């Protein structure tokens, strides 16, 4: 690919802008960066609009922008890529009804992570540890995958360095990210998310206006998709597969540490509930992004020799960059690629902060250095966030990209195992912590085994009662987890019921005006 100078200049300019904003954001609603609550949750001060940008920027990542259309574009894909739409349709009612409870109890009791909540609700440090470790493990590949998105757009601009230098742009980007994250904490990605989300909306709207006009309308776009992939196959297994895929994805999404961080950084329950009505705008955007994959088919980018090297290096992930290169002038290519590139930095930042919060609170402070001073706690989180980013970078540099994708699939299966503990815990204390721990362990092992046994694909064809029911591995494994937890809870409750619970019912409706002990 020839070097696209115009695009590169625009790209670098926008990266310079967000670097400035990242450092400047420390002054925004200024707080003491030596307190974990301020560094890791921005003091919990974000209102409706900022939370909208933050959670949107958090959930709709560079990888989403590249991988979802790639799924629509590729030979094995098509209609199934649209699972991202119903997944987000069902999740926001769930957020609306359930997550204010987590926010309230966290404000009332000073929790910064979901594992903090588990520790307080069940009084069991081992269950909390399981939740924390799961969160950290599930987040790591997700961060690594953002780098893949960044890699693709850098290569698409024709930046071709030799040998080890090929990773230099990635390393520089991540070094900048690490620097302003360390300095400003969650305020940095929140501020940058505003820029990034605006850029993504502009890019996608430009694409859906310009490209259909260019290729001859939406009819042409849909007719360039092979008939057999335009809809889901009309059979039972296809429907159970699709439905469980989006159900499992929805159940898992807000259990991820970075989603919890977004929720807990909000200033009130109202902010969360309003955002449950407003965030679906991003879902609409995601539906359009999926259709970019079809637009790439209509534009014939795979047949175009100019993009051959990109496709050979990145396979279907090159569909969207090729489409953008094909349709837009150099300066807009730079803008669009910067949107994607920044779209890698924002979630990577929030994810690493969230993972750092978990490690610091629920491993370091719980087991290694209890009663540590607030400054020590905050320092540990900052360092952990750095380590996490370096780890993700090394992962992408040293290991084949496919491993990151497999681990991401497993990450989704792992994180859903925290559903019984956290979500049911928000409503009832009936489930026993040890029973939940056993259920969690079984779910983890079963889910990992199932996923691995089918070559790290999401849909497992379970053979039961003479039928084959294909469904998302995460659903099967969390059902087993939950069933076991319920059965064992019944047994344990009958003998010696564990009663530890520092929360009271009123906590779950708290408005947060109380003292709550945040950042103690």
């Amino acid at each position, binding site marked *: 690919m020839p070097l696209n100078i115009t695009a590169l200049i625009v790209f670098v300019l926008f990266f310079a802008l967000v670097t400035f904003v990242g450092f400047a954001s420390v002054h925004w609603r200024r707080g003491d960066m030596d307190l974990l609550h301020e560094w890791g949750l921005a003091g919990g001060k974000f209102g409706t609009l900022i939370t909208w940008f933050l959670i949107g920027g958090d959930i709709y990542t560079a990888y989403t922008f590249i991988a979802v259309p790639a799924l629509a574009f590729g030979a094995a894909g098509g209609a199934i890529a649209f699972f991202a739409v*119903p997944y987000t349709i069902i999740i926001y*009612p769930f957020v609306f009804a359930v997550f204010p409870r987590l926010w309230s109890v966290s404000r009332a009791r000073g929790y910064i992570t979901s594992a903090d909540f588990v520790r307080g609700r069940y009084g069991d440090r081992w269950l909390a540890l399981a939740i924390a470790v799961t969160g950290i493990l599930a987040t790591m590949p997700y961060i690594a995958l953002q780098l893949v998105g960044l890699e693709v757009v850098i290569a698409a601009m024709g930046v071709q360095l030799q040998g080890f230098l090929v990773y230099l742009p990635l390393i520089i980007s991540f070094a900048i990210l690490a620097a302003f994250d360390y300095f400003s904490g969650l305020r940095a990605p929140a501020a940058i998310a505003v820029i990034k989300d605006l850029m993504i909306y502009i890019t996608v709207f430009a694409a859906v206006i310009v490209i259909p006009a260019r290729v001859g309308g939406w009819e042409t776009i*849909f007719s360039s998709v092979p008939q057999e992939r335009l809809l*889901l196959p009309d059979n039972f297994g296809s429907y159970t597969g699709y439905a469980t895929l989006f159900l499992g994805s929805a159940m898992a999404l807000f259990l991820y540490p970075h989603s919890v961080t977004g929720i807990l950084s909000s200033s009130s329950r109202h902010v969360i509930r309003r955002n449950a*009505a407003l965030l*679906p705008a991003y879902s*609409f955007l995601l539906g359009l992004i999926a259709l970019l994959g079809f637009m790439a088919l209509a534009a014939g980018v795979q047949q175009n020799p100019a993009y051959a090297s990109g496709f050979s290096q990145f396979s279907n992930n090159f569909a969207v960059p090729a489409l953008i290169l094909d349709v837009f002038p150099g300066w807009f290519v730079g803008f669009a690629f910067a949107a994607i590139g920044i779209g890698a930095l924002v979630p990577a930042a929030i994810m690493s902060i969230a993972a750092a919060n978990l490690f610091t609170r629920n491993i370091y402070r719980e087991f290694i250095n209890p009663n540590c001073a607030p400054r020590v706690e905050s320092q540990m989180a900052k360092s952990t966030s750095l380590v996490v980013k370096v780890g993700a970078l090394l992962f992408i540099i040293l290991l084949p990209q496919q491993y990151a994708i497999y681990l991401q699939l497993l990450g989704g299966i792992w994180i859903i195992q925290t559903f019984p503990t956290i979500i049911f815990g928000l409503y009832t204390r009936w489930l026993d912590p040890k029973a939940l721990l056993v259920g969690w362990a079984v779910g983890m092992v079963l889910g990992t085994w199932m996923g691995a046994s089918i070559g790290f694909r999401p849909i497992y064809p379970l053979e039961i009662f003479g039928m084959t029911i294909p469904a998302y591995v995460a659903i099967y494994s969390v059902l087993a987890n939950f069933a076991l937890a319920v059965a064992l809870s019944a047994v344990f409750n009958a003998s010696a019921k564990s009663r530890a619970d520092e929360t009271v019912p009123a906590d779950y409706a*708290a408005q947060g005006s109380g003292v709550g002990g945040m950042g103690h």
Partner: protein
Amino acid sequence: MNGNNGTNGNAWHWSYWLLILVCLVTFFVPFYNRIEPTLFGFPFFYWFQLGWILVSMIVTAFAYYITEQHEKSR
């Protein structure tokens, strides 16, 4: 400690049944897995799901406004 004077902002409200209905329709995949009727060149499978997002936004916004009085701190 929590300033809501005992009102329960988590109480069930009838509008939540609408939210459940939105989700149930979403699960009924065979219903929307079709091409006809098309809209602006979009097969039903695609425009229905996109449109259903807008429906869910409206229903959630409705549920928010109608339950807001339970949430307001005094």
